């Protein structure tokens, strides 16, 4: 198989996956119980006709799919209904037009709601992932290089303990510690400094990022450390390392030119897989540190049965995971020339 076929196959699979998520998204939230019109607000001002008005505004008056008015509770409907007038079709049509709909809760376009939060999450996750990868990989390398020494055991135990820490608990403990030591503990910036110089604002955001980023880094560093360590241990036992040594290369040269690239291969895959999990981690960290990101959006949308937002978030997560996997596959094929041959 040549490179293009390889690429095409991967892309086709990625598209199929996204399609699957799109469909799953729709039905998941319609099979699970809940009525978005009444959720969150039990208010006597919301009379029957007002509820009906909301239903029409959200498009929930239309049948979900032909033959079914609603899926939970299952309420059979007219099978002869125009399929283009069903919620499912309208959902698909809007998606193809790049429209994610309007939030039931804030009446704002979902793309806007998620857009601003996405950047906040990317900022937090990006910094956290970067740090945890760098630290985890460095310490993992160091541990593997110094295998069976106290350094190695120290790193291994640190990695295992870090892996075992519940994210939210570590967040709470650091928050407790940080609030008594002058760290900002909530939000992503001090409000009201938008007129200040850019550097001042950047510094302010940086200060707000410290605690959440440390939390994130500690939790994820453990895994990278463990994987890097075992991966490098395998690589360093390979024959080509002995060849390199026989060539008279220094330890540093061998690590840099022969071991690192090969040992990074599993890390690439894990980073891609982690992207999905990071949002999970983000839910916890964002709720502890009041960080206005995607994790919080999931939680809020859930409380209010804000289906358009939930669908948007899940789609966003799925697309980013699929993309990450795709990028990982491609990176892999660049890092490892053997892949294209398979």
């Amino acid at each position: 198989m040549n490179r293009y076929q390889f690429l095409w196959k991967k892309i086709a699979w990625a598209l199929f996956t996204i399609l699957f998520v799109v469909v799953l998204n729709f039905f998941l939230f319609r099979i699970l119980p809940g009525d978005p019109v009444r959720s969150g607000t039990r208010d006597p001002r919301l009379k029957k006709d007002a509820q009906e008005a909301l239903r029409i505004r959200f498009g929930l008056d239309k049948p979900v799919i032909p033959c079914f008015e609603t899926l939970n509770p299952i309420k059979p409907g007219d099978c002869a209904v125009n399929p283009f007038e069903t919620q499912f079709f309208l959902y698909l049509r809007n998606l193809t037009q790049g429209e994610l709909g309007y939030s039931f809760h804030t009446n704002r376009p979902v793309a806007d709601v998620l857009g601003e939060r996405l950047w906040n999450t990317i900022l937090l996750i990006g910094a956290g992932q970067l740090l945890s990868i760098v630290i985890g990989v460095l310490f993992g390398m160091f541990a593997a290089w110094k295998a069976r020494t106290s350094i190695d055991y120290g790193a291994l135990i640190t990695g295992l303990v870090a892996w075992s820490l519940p994210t939210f608990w570590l967040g709470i403990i650091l928050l407790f510690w940080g609030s008594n030591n002058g760290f900002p503990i909530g939000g992503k910036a001090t409000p009201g400094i938008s007129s200040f110089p850019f550097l001042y604002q950047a510094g302010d955001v940086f200060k707000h990022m410290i605690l959440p980023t440390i939390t994130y880094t500690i939790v994820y560093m453990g895994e990278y450390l463990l994987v890097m360590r075992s991966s490098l241990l395998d690589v360093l036992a390979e024959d080509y390392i002995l060849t390199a040594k026989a060539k008279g290369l220094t330890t540093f040269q061998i690590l840099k030119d022969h071991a690192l690239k090969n040992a990074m291969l599993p890390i690439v895959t894990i980073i891609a897989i982690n992207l999905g999990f990071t949002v999970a981690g983000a839910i916890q960290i964002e709720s502890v540190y009041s960080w206005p990101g995607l994790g919080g959006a999931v939680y809020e949308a859930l409380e209010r049965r804000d289906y358009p937002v939930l669908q948007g978030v899940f789609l966003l997560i799925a697309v980013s995971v699929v993309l990450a996997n795709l990028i990982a596959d491609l990176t892999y094929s660049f890092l490892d020339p053997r892949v294209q041959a398979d």
Partner: protein
Amino acid sequence: MAFQTVEIKPAVPSSPLLGFWRIFSKNRMAVVGLVMLVVSIVVAVFAPLITPYDPQTSAGLTSGDIYNPPSAEHWLGTDDAGKDVFSSFIYGSRVSLIVGFFAAFISIVIGGVIGIVAGYYGGRLENLLMRFTDLLLVIPDLPLIVVIVALTKPSLFNIIFVIGILGWTTTARIVRSQTLAVKSRKFVLRARAIGAGNRHIIIHHVLPLVLPLLVVNAILVISLAILNESTLSFLGLGDPTAISWGQMLNFAFGRGAMSAGAWWALATPGFGIVWVVLALTLLGHGLEQVLNPRLESHHLMPGRLTVQSEAEVESTEKARRRESPVLLDVRNLSVQFVNNGTVAQAVQDVSFQLHEGEMMGLVGESGCGKTTLIMALNRLLPASGQISNGHVYFHGKDIASASEEELADVRWSGISIVFQGAMNALNPVRTVGDQIREAIVKHIPTMTPDQVDKRIVELLELVGITADHKDHFPHQYSGGMRQRAMIAMALSCNPQVVIADEPTTALDVMIQAQILELLDALRKRLGLAIIFVTHDLGVVAEMCDSVLVMYGGVTAEHADVDTIYNAPRHPYTQELLKAFPDLSQPEKRLVSIPGYPPKLDALPAGCRFAPRCPLAFERCLVEMPKQYELPGHHIASCHLVES
């Protein structure tokens, strides 16, 4: 490269379980994890006996009891409802363990079945199942769990069910690949050949081999399930009627423990989660090491320093028959391996001289110390190996005591190695040209990049590889090309000595012949000295000037090639020759030597060949023969030679 690390096998245990336990108990990490886990299980089972208060009752509590600091009455203080934190903490272990074990059980069963079915039956079914698994991996499980639990009833049963049913994907993947590996094993094929049913094969042959891996995976899945449960509870989606550690944290965080300064209400449940998860992680990690042991060492671990146990002995070989100067002078070289305190003598008291342009054959059965010897020449021994005596003079410099910098200079530009199995000896992710370039740049820094490029092409052409293969990766080469590329690499820095370690094993006969011709031609053209390690006495007879026969780590016989073939004095050499087909005597019956070379950590007291020697007598069993010097620079270590 089948580098013979000395393996020290434990005595065969009486039962497999006992044997497993013996290895397991040596793994400190696994034992600590197991102890921690057992402690938490015991605590969970006997919770009512341990706890001073019943966490279900709040009789007699008032607002004065809320968030009281640790005291004699309440060892870990009280919580937001005035209850004893210690008691809740103990009871909390029950929920965490129950959720962990049951959810993991569901995951493992689903993942196990899907993995085995996919791996065993293969084909379209496998494709379908694994694609489905891939799809589920795209959906982040925690948000999905959160959504489902939130929208259904957050009861313990639901939580277990949802966590379990979404947590099987990694298990399925791991089990599938293990099943694939097991499926092609001989005994499975045999069972199938004799008509055993699929069910029978899966249950009796596949499952037992997949099981250990499944257990390790299960332990990790349990810990993930426990973490997920606590996260759910913390987000307020746990079962509020069950006291779990996540629930305790939810109450503490939601009801102002931090503002009240009640660190005990926050720290205690978190400690519980970390304790159990860490126990499982340690156990899982340890078990994995036990079931799937890694090499004890790698190539970058610092080697052991050379020691000199005896005073230098004058070379047994003085001026030899050749006029050409001595390149490599090995004197009384001994190498030992130190593993867990046991010492194995891999090479003992080997001496030889290598002259310019000489090709020396190094022969002997596997495990006789040939590879150890050549690795010692360049100080490339693994971390457990150590030069315990002797010297390796190269250009008057003793490699045995050289510093790392001096070594780096000698390696490749002085002595280079053609490794056996070039597939593994070449880095798969770098081009061949690149790997050659690296050596040149290192040792001949004066060359410009253009000159280096030219040199690489020259070298490749020298071994019969066209220039357009320069930028190809090793996997794009055929087996013979790789071996030739390896030779080109070995020649790249104009070494004076090339060690060729069985360069032709695993190649077909035609290619073998090509490679050997190439080596011989290069030797003649470039004036190299070559140490040629091989089993193939025919090749040695054809190409080598001298032969060193090794047995059990010592020199059995060392002489020029004619002497060895025509007048071998050591019984081992004689036996080797009997086992070797001779084209000139097609009628000759081939006789293999009964028995095996000695284990290096259990060497016989006398002559090392004595147990297998057809001529052995009493003295051979008690006294080790010294190296007797015979006329014509012929050395043999056999008591028979003396008489």
